[in-house]
């Protein structure tokens, strides 16, 4: 079972990276969604996939029976899902805002292709242009 999950995780990560290499911001975010699912699968398989009894303590006992399944990874994954849900919701809203402002989700057009340039002069021109546009 672990082997299947390993291969699946690898596949998902590969798809995620393929999507994240795209210039399209929305595709990039889909890549992130996939990647976060892959991370969750890693957490899941890290807790050992065994078929055991649920982690309940019988009435009158103080300890769970021998060989209970590990419930902790599920708790971790739940937390991680909730957190990544929040982060992705925010990122989607932000990219929608960017789309409203700029009218495109193409990373190149978003930045005007220059404002992340490390060259000082083009950076200055780009910033001055946007300052003028914002006024």
């Amino acid at each position: 079972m672990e082997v299947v999950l390993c291969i699946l995780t690898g596949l998902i990560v590969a798809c995620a990276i393929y999507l994240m290499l795209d210039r399209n911001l929305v595709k990039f975010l889909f890549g992130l969604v996939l990647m976060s699912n892959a991370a969750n699968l890693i957490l899941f398989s890290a807790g050992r996939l065994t078929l055991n009894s649920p982690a309940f303590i019988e009435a009158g006992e103080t300890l769970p029976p021998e060989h209970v399944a590990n419930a902790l990874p599920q708790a971790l994954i739940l937390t991680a899902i909730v957190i990544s849900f929040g982060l992705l919701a925010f990122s989607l809203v932000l990219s929608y805002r960017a789309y409203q402002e700029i009218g495109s989700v193409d990373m190149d057009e978003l930045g005007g292709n220059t404002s992340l340039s490390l060259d000082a002069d083009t950076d200055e021109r780009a910033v001055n242009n946007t300052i003028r546009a914002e006024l």
Partner: protein
Amino acid sequence: MDDWLILIPVLLPLSTAILAAVLPKSRAVQAGLSVAATALLVFVSLAIFAKAAGGTILTVSLGSWPAPFGIVMVADLLSAVMLCITSIIALATAVYAIADIDRERLHFGFHSFLQFLLCGICGAFLTGDLFNLYVWFEVMLISSFALLSLGGGKRQLYGTIKYIALNLISTLLLLSAIGLLYGMTGHLNLASLAVAVPQVENANLVTATAILFLIAFGIKAAVFPLFFWLPASYHMPPVTVSAIFAGLLTKVGVYALYRVFSLLFTHDVEWTHTILLWVAGLTMVTGVLGAAVQQNIRRILSFHIISQIGYMIMGLALFTKAAILGGVFYTIHHIIVKANLFFIGGIVERRTGNPFVRNMGGLYRVAPWFSLLFLVPALSLAGIPPLSGFWAKFLVIRAGLDEQAWLIVAAALFTGLMTIYSMLKIWNEAFWKRNPERPDASLFDAPPHGSHGAPPLSRAAQFCLLAPCALLAALTIWIGLWPQPFLAVADQIADQLMNNEAYVQAVLHSRQSPLVETMR
């Protein structure tokens, strides 16, 4: 024994954030609340520091579950010191924000997000649990997203997208690394991990996981090949936001690296810490070279964050007591100086209306005292005695010489030299040369047009902008002229980091519960 005091640095910003969200959005209420809460935070942090300085490591087991099972909060001296600095920067930021944050951002809940950010930072410094550290990073991250994008135009949105993209990837790597480490050891508690990690049979797996942690925290700390999000985003938001990000956020990454690579991954120092050393050297040099070509004042300063991170990582990478001491001292010095430089840069930028040094000028003529105020952190950053940066650089470089790591020492010295070049560039352009457009404009005489377009500042607002700068500059001078107490503290921190038995003892054996006995 439980020290509930160390929960306050988390609970106080959290409750303030909620309160700020529901209270009316008037400037007086919001700013007053924020300043009062951060001032209280300073006192609480100092109280925690006073307790931790006695050599005890404070712990709290939440829900009364003993250490390996429940979640613990731990404050050793490193955490306590980081808390103190955080609260001081937070106070300075809250005061600066009174004058710098516009009505729109105030209305959208700026102070609420600021307090959530502080909550996340304090939580990250205090937690004794790896998964919890991830959660605090997320709290910090999402509030920093909100602060970055708040009320922003096109430029700010673009910077935020770059910031979000890389930080989300780092988060996923961190989560995977935690999962793998949990799979190997069955622990998430840092103290239990410190015991369990050296017992893992396959040391190579541990090393691979260590590198995954290095990449995850490295993105947060903006080290060499992973720093591109920082100069792309830090000059976009309002100065207040830039300053607190510059002072604190990357340093949380550095703190996490210090914690993880001194407590958990010391099994193969030869290999992991050599990688760290290369990363440190390249971070210094690329950062400082990046700054050399910039004309945008906040971008110059952003690139210098990167180069300075290199010195802190160098302290960790050499992994001797003297080097850790130097690295910790460097971190303390750097947070104060860097936040201050952003504050001052913001005032300079406001006068010109745009961030490019070539359009500035003549400040020394109209505001000589303010110019001196700039010189203190600028020269300290470059490492000129007798300011704090001199001692910081001296300690790290001496540790490098002791270890005969000539290459990294050369890189560190070269970086120091280039830092002077960048600081002089700002000094010559903004302060020394004649102002090309308005030679007689006074310090707070903003141009009628420009990105700020703000109305002239009242006297009180001017005070709010200048007071944090003066406070932080005074701290820099204090550390410079009288470094002995700070050195003693850094020495004690280095002791604690190099010998982690005390940490493990304090967390795992703080309370002997019957449950622990049964599980044995």
